[in-house]
């Protein structure tokens, strides 16, 4: 199966390990990976700040980049949610609305793709450790992917899972919210870190690099002995 990877700007620049793990994992599951060089960013930072007109060029660029793909897969629930938002943003535009729809229909978050499209529930991974999992808001609420990451993690050998208290609560990232409302964001991420600590887990796992950058950044700052990993890295361990 041919998969076109949408790595996301955060993974490309800051979390290249997540991108590598995604490629290796999908290849191991029999996919052929393609990475179009013209991909940049889904446009969320400026779009969510209200700069809709300013972001449209970037979104059009992304649509054109991926329009001919068979499947578009990304290790980020939030960025894929944004692809699903494109048809609403271009609503009424005779050229771009149909193109945006076409892209949205074939765009999947990584775990969603593995479980729903590849129909694989056990990727044959082994990972020794106590873990907990942060359910990212956009991925669970807006994209509606709740079960796939849980199914995949439950089949990882050696992995001990503890549910995160208050798992449905936002970590306080929210794109520019993290800097614009830094005071509030700090309280939110602090509560999240407290909850992670309560589980006694050695690893915090998530499926969205942005949330992990926020929670992980706070964990590092306050010096907690908790490692942060993307689910692609866990599923690629064997």
């Amino acid at each position, binding site marked *: 199966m041919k998969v076109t990877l949408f*790595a996301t*700007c955060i*993974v*490309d*620049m*800051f*979390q*290249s390990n997540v*991108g*590598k793990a995604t*490629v290796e994992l999908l290849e191991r599951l029999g996919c052929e990976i393609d*990475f179009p*060089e*013209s991909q*940049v*960013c889904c*446009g969320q*930072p*400026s779009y*969510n*700040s*209200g*700069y*809709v*007109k*300013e*972001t449209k*060029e*970037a979104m*059009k*660029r992304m649509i054109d980049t991926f329009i001919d793909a068979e499947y578009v897969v990304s290790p980020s629930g939030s960025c894929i949610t944004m692809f699903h938002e494109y048809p609403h943003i271009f609503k009424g535009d005779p050229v771009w609305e149909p193109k945006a729809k076409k892209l949205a229909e074939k765009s999947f978050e990584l775990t969603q793709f593995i479980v729903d499209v590849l129909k694989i529930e056990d990727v044959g991974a082994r990972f020794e450790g106590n873990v907990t999992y942060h359910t990212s*808001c*956009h991925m669970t*609420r*807006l994209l509606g992917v709740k079960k796939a990451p849980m199914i995949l993690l439950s089949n990882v050998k050696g992995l001990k899972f503890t549910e995160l208290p208050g798992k*449905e*609560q*936002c970590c*306080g990232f*929210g*794109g520019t*919210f*993290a*800097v*614009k*409302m*830094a*005071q*509030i*964001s700090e*309280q*939110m*991420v602090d509560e999240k870190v407290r909850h992670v600590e309560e589980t006694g887990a050695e690893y915090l796992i998530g499926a969205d690099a942005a949330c992990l*950058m*926020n929670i*992980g*950044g*706070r964990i*590092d*700052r306050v010096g907690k002995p908790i490692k942060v990993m993307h689910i692609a890295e866990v599923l690629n361990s064997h």
Partner: protein
Amino acid sequence: MAMKISTDQFKERVSKGIHDDFMRGAVAGAQDGMGVKRRLATEELGNWEDWRSHGEEIRQHVLENLDYYLEQLSENVAKRGGHVFFAQTKEEANEYIRSIVKKKEAKKIVKSKSMVTEEISLNSMLEQEGCEVIETDLGEYILQIDDHDPPSHIVVPALHKNKEQIRDVFTERLGYTKTSKPEELAWHAREMLRKEYLSADIGITGCNFAVAETGSFSLVTNEGNADLVTALPKTQITVMGMERLVPTFEEMEVLVSLLTRSAVGQKLTSYITVLTGPREALDVDGPEEFHLVIVDNGRSKILGGEFQSVLQCIRCAACINVCPVYRHVGGHSYGSIYSGPIGAVLSPLLGGYDEFKELPYASTLCGACTEVCPVKIPLHNLLHKHREVIVEKEGKAPISEKLLMKAFGLGAASPIMYNIGSKLAPAAMNPFTVGEKISKGPGPLKAWTDIRDFPAPNKERFRDWFKNREKGGK
């Protein structure tokens, strides 16, 4: 009390909220407790999503045909001997109510809980007229005797106070001598309030849902105070937001179920009171004169526009009870009687962007509000819509942000610019990088690194690794 409840700047209000440990504990406890109750009460129906869709459908239908139903409601209230006044502004609403107070030479007024009367500052007008106004909802009563402390929640107005604080207020203001046991406090309030009902000249209520077909209106309470407010005084005035109506009792039943389950996790509240017009010949109680004041106060401007769905709101506060921002800053931080996600959408619409422009940004757009709304208002989308209006129509965004976002937009639209920028990033960030982290970032990154570390850009970007690999590299 007006819609605006503070003259402090947004940041100061948030700072006060964040440092109020007691309030934060109370809010978190209430959110967690009410969250569980709400979930159980909605899940037990087995088809909650169908209920939500039905609720949405009813509210949308009413809004699409509001003129028709308002006319039907007015006619039916009049047929039953009631008076209807349509107030376009809060001033008109207050003026009409003032005229009734004058005509009746009213000295004492009892009220049941009503957000719309807070919105139009009714109490302060009545007090200026020399009336004694007594709030009879226990939460509102506590706030009123505590020097008009503003409500911090639309359903549980005194959420920010604990029983010890309430005991202190009672001791100081009412000569209360007993303990902080809730039963004793409630009993005392009950004794104080009972004599007020009996001696009041006018009773004023809000309205949960008016029923167009019969000219009735309903009140949903757990204390039964609204029954006494409507049964004892000779004159009754009911104030309603112009969108708060349903076609028939059938729709009312659906919305009341959605309301009580979403608001407090109850199948039904202790009292759901439905009243129609003034007392009739065979009635043993009820007012001799009934006035319905329908308040527009900016609502008709929302109707037909991109924010219309906010008028679907049935004031259940489910969105407030799940909001992670409200959880940490509390209701007073919003600076409006309408707090939380619904307040952040509604306040700028009713009170203007000048007063409330920060509120749409007080959200991570996490969607928790949208997920629980029993009438499916896309709250997080409306918050985003506000941001778009602030940036593009109102021109109220800071210039530094505009430049940054323009630059971002250009960078994200151009692979060449992105390529250069992302390649240069590690070198550019090198002076700020220690190990693999940036702990003191420059410019816009500072607000991030004040709180958390930021990862240093990878020396080898993912795309470089991928390209090398394709070429047969590692």
